[in-house]
């Protein structure tokens, strides 16, 4: 039994089919990085796992429990525990602009978990200190840089003690000089042993953080391997083409 088990996932947008029976397993100790051309369903996969998309078929299991089961009539079964046990960070507009940094961190624990305000606050301050953001606690998102916003968003997800973290192109919208601070924060989490699934276009980062890289194209896993193998010695022609293209563009 793997930690994350996605079996037979079917996802369609109207007549557009993203997945027709997609399988992916992930172990507890893994940091899985998803790469592949735009539109191949990497982000959609994370969104499906979080229960943000209706899936037409398949099962998503976490720690052996069924969390999401697709149904063709649009009435998928969703165990809302998934949203309590999995944390997710998005590309854009992740922070609530009407709340301070501290307010953003404490919202979910206090309002949806019934954690005491003072407890949530202490925990939030601890996380902010760890990320070097303590002096920003009372700032509003509009007063933060893009990199700081994303780090706060990571801290906010960690407030709920997730068993798994999903990162959906979290550095894609950032200015290049701000990317590193966010990637460092993710590296620090990785070193702490947090299981992660990461969608990124940054191949160097993918190589350094991943325990396993999955190359995905047109809704299928083409190749999955340890980063050194996948980047150093890709087995599939399509993987080689893709890497040649992106690494060439990246220079």
């Amino acid at each position, binding site marked *: 039994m793997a930690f994350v088990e996605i079996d037979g996932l079917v996802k369609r947008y109207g007549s557009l089919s993203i997945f027709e029976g997609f399988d992916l397993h992930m172990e507890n100790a893994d940091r899985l990085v998803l790469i592949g051309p735009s539109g191949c369903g990497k982000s959609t996969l994370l969104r499906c796992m979080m229960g943000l998309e209706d899936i037409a078929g398949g099962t998503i299991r976490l720690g052996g429990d069924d969390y999401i089961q697709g149904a063709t009539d649009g009435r998928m079964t969703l165990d809302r525990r998934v949203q309590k046990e999995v944390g997710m960070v998005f590309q854009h507009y*992740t922070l609530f*602009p009407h709340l301070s940094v501290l307010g953003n961190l404490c919202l979910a624990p206090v*309002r*949806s978990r019934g954690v005491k305000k003072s407890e949530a606050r202490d925990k939030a301050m601890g996380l902010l200190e760890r990320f070097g953001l303590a002096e920003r606690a009372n700032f509003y998102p509009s007063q933060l840089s893009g990199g700081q916003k994303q780090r706060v968003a990571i801290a906010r*997800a960690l407030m709920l003690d997730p068993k798994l973290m999903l990162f959906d192109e979290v550095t894609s919208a950032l200015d290049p000089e701000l990317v590193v601070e966010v990637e460092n924060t993710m590296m620090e989490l990785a070193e702490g042993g947090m299981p992660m699934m990461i969608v990124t276009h940054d191949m160097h980062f993918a190589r350094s953080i991943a325990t396993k890289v999955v190359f995905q194209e047109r809704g299928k896993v083409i190749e999955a391997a340890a980063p050194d193998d996948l980047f150093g010695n890709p087995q599939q022609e399509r993987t080689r083409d893709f890497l040649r293209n992106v690494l060439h563009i990246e220079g």
Partner: protein
Amino acid sequence: MNYEFDWFYVKKGFPQLIEGLWLTLELTLWANVIGLVLGFLVAIGMLSKIKAIVWPLTAYIEFFRCTPALIQLVWFFFCIPILFNVWWSAEFMGILALGLNLAAFNAEAYRAAIQAIPHAHTDASTALGLNVFQRIIHVILPQALILSLPVLITNGIGIFQQSALVALISVEDLMYQGRYISTQTFRPIETLTTVALIYFAVSFPVSQAVTLIERRTKRLLAN
């Protein structure tokens, strides 16, 4: 013009005008309470996908936006008692008509604001495990309020001015008192000018504040 100003009666009647002003403010307050709460609920309903909810709400909004406030007020005052066999005070009818009118306008302001909130916030709050009510209360409502605040205040102060219409159904508001004093004393210029200035004195600072608030909310919600 050979007119001699005489402010004696205005001075004498001033406490009466202030009393009228208090009633006007009270009507404004309650109409705004209805307008702010009901307006939000209507806006949420308007965003629903269920046509049986959207159509009646659309009819309500368009009715109140496309008929004069005066006819709404008079209609409530004269027709509701006959249709429903209820006898409510003129003040209550005034508040009800003004409140429903304001709610219709506020609903549109809220709706525009809600639609301006990035959809990603819904995803982010869902991913944090907030249920639909927690999302509405803690994520959507506060942002919609902040975004639409300038329009809500403008609408609210508009109702303060529109409330002068209740004088026509014998609610003893500022307008009513002013008209009363001016006809009793034959001093319309002094009295009605004073009344106008009182309305102005309340409205003007508020409308100035709106500009300031607008600047601040834009800065806060800049992404």
